[in-house]
């Protein structure tokens, strides 16, 4: 365990040195690795229209600040803090209002009756393991599209927790939300995607 951690740190140290030297392959690698999650976070905080700009600024700040990076956190967390801080100050500076996300996702059917029993249960899934889902190209597409249709804050939360495997505390810090809020957002995001997969599985039976 310890060895793995050390190698990851070493790997990051090497990457950072190369970035400071201006190695193009390293720039490409680091953008490929982290641009998506940075964009996700920016969109959640400042909305879509200026998110690209905010992320651009964050990248530039980060590259400039790289020589001072002490490695107390991972590179990913450090980058996300830069984006988050940049996004939050844009919000303050411009008094930007990002509309509150709807309570429930639209199209969320009422699955339960007044007694809390299943009224409209999910289908049986032919592809009912992660492996089966991943082997199905239609489903991978459905996941990708459902993800992209999620409200920005749900999407960012899902990305950070399920895709990027980040700790809840970091997520709350970066997105400026409470732990219970984060858990609700994560759940809603998963449910939305589940629902689309379920619809597909239902049609498959027909």
């Amino acid at each position: 365990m310890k060895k793995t951690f050390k190698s990851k740190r070493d790997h990051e140290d090497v990457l950072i040195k190369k970035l400071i030297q201006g190695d193009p392959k390293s720039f490409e690698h680091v953008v490929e690795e982290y641009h998506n999650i940075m964009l996700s976070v920016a969109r959640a905080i400042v909305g879509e229209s200026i998110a690209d700009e905010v992320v651009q600024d964050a990248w530039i700040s980060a590259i400039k600040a790289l020589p001072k990076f002490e490695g107390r956190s991972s590179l990913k967390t450090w980058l996300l803090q830069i984006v988050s801080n940049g996004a939050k100050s844009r919000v303050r500076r411009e008094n930007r209002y990002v509309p509150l996300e709807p309570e429930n996702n639209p199209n969320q059917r009422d699955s339960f009756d007044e007694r809390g029993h299943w009224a409209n249960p999910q289908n049986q899934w032919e592809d009912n393991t992660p492996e089966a889902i991943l082997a199905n190209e239609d489903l991978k597409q459905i996941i990708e599209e459902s993800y992209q249709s999620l409200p920005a804050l749900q999407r960012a939360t899902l990305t950070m927790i399920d895709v990027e495997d980040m700790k809840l505390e970091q997520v709350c810090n970066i997105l400026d939300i409470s732990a219970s809020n984060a858990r609700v957002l994560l759940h809603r995001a998963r449910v939305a995607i589940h629902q689309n997969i379920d619809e597909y599985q239902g049609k498959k039976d027909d």
Partner: protein
Amino acid sequence: MINCKEVSEDASNYIDGNLPLMKRLSIKLHIFICVRCRQYIEQLSSTATAVAAVKPKEKTSSDAQAIAQELLEKCKKTKSEH
């Protein structure tokens, strides 16, 4: 006794191990008996795992290579200005 609606609302917390012991046991007992809830939790869990593996991307028109190149140029430009 918890009902199916309550189980579904706590499904993610259950999957992620974020529940106090008694709640966790209540759900465990419920899904032992209730096939639909057991199925729902399995499906939700598979969904979360599949999402993690698919690693879906934000919808964007720009690609990593172009961004990296632009970034590199901007940084070189800044360096030469000092």
